[in-house]
């Protein structure tokens, strides 16, 4: 390398090919390598990575949305089912309760009727019993009175038949009143 004042700052021809030609090819190549390594490769990779990431993010977001929608529908369906189930249970329970209630009422009514019938029968029986007792009492009284009047003891069997006949002639209705 030499640097002398005589040749320094001399102008070369405007259109003159010289060593600059090769220097410039070399310079361009070096600049290309540097720019590719420093600028284009990292930035392009970064942008591509980011684009891929965004795309996958969007995809997963769409998928999640769909899943959420599905779950929502599922849960809505479940809630509906549960509501229906509840309604059904309530309906059934109501039905059961109603039938039960009517059954009970029926039973009560039947019981009541039965009791009434029983009472009626009891009453009837009591009445018959009372009538019979009265009949006996009257016949005894009549026998006593008759024997006192007649003064002699009649044959018991004949008397009973006589009295019964009498009573029958008087009639049940008269006794009842």
């Amino acid at each position, binding site marked *: 390398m030499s640097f002398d004042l005589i*040749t320094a700052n001399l102008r070369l021809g*405007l259109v003159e090919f010289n060593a*600059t030609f090769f220097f*410039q090819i070399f310079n361009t190549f070096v600049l290309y390598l540097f720019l590719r390594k420093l600028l284009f490769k990292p930035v392009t990779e970064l*942008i591509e990575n980011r684009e891929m990431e965004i795309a996958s993010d969007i995809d997963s977001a769409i998928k999640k949305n769909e899943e959420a929608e599905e779950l929502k529908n599922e849960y809505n369906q479940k809630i509906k089912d549960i509501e229906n189930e509840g309604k059904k249970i309530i309906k059934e329970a109501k039905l059961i309760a109603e039938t039960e209630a009517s059954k009970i009422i029926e039973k009560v009514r039947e019981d009541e009727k039965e009791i009434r019938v029983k009472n009626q029968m009891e009453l009837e029986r009591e009445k018959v019993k009372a009538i019979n007792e009265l009949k006996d009492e009257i016949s005894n009284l009549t026998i006593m009175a008759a024997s006192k009047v007649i003064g002699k003891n009649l044959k018991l069997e004949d008397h009973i038949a006589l009295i019964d006949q009498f009573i029958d002639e008087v009639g049940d209705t008269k006794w009842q009143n």
Partner: protein
Amino acid sequence: MNEGFGPQKVFEIFGMPITNTVTVTWFIMAIIIGVSYLATKNLKKRASGAQIVTELIVTAINDLTEQTMGKKLKAFSPYIGTLLIFLGIANIAGLFGVRPPTADVNTTISLAIVTFVMIHFFGMKYNGLSYLKGFAEPFVLLLPLNIMGELATPISLGFRLFGNIVGGMIIMNLLYGALANFTPALIGIPFLQAGIPVAFHIYFDLFSGVLQSFIFAMLTMVFISIAVD
């Protein structure tokens, strides 16, 4: 040879002149590499601040490459990005008072030759011998014409860029020279250089520079994808 608008020799390595084209290129390279190192030092998944700008630039270049060359050739994106960023900064270097590296035919033709080599390398890589057969189409007599047409590609590519930038640079130099001569004649204070060149800088450096770097990158993409398809 101290006159004219050629690149200046700064020093020599083994007898090879190192011009200010190369030194300015090194300076621009250092800036680009430094900035991209800082910009990508700690990239985060959640972008914020400068990282958003970095991602925007890279995405724009990736998308441009993919749209122009197709999905198959999107691996060219770093090279196209290198062209766009380097040429974009080199072309507007005139704004910062240095000689644009692209105002040197060595720079533009070297880039055009790289494009030329890529066109035919990838043409053959993807299409094999049928690519070479394509030069004899529609019939063999057109072979020399086709080859000349192919050779014209890097020349037109390189000189289009060179011509635009060097033309702008020469006009700006002439303008500054003219204004420098005008002002003392008026009142002796160099005030004309203050505002007038702005409009010219906007057109020749900013507009033309950005447009030409875009055209160069675009044509590189189109030629390569035509050869590959």
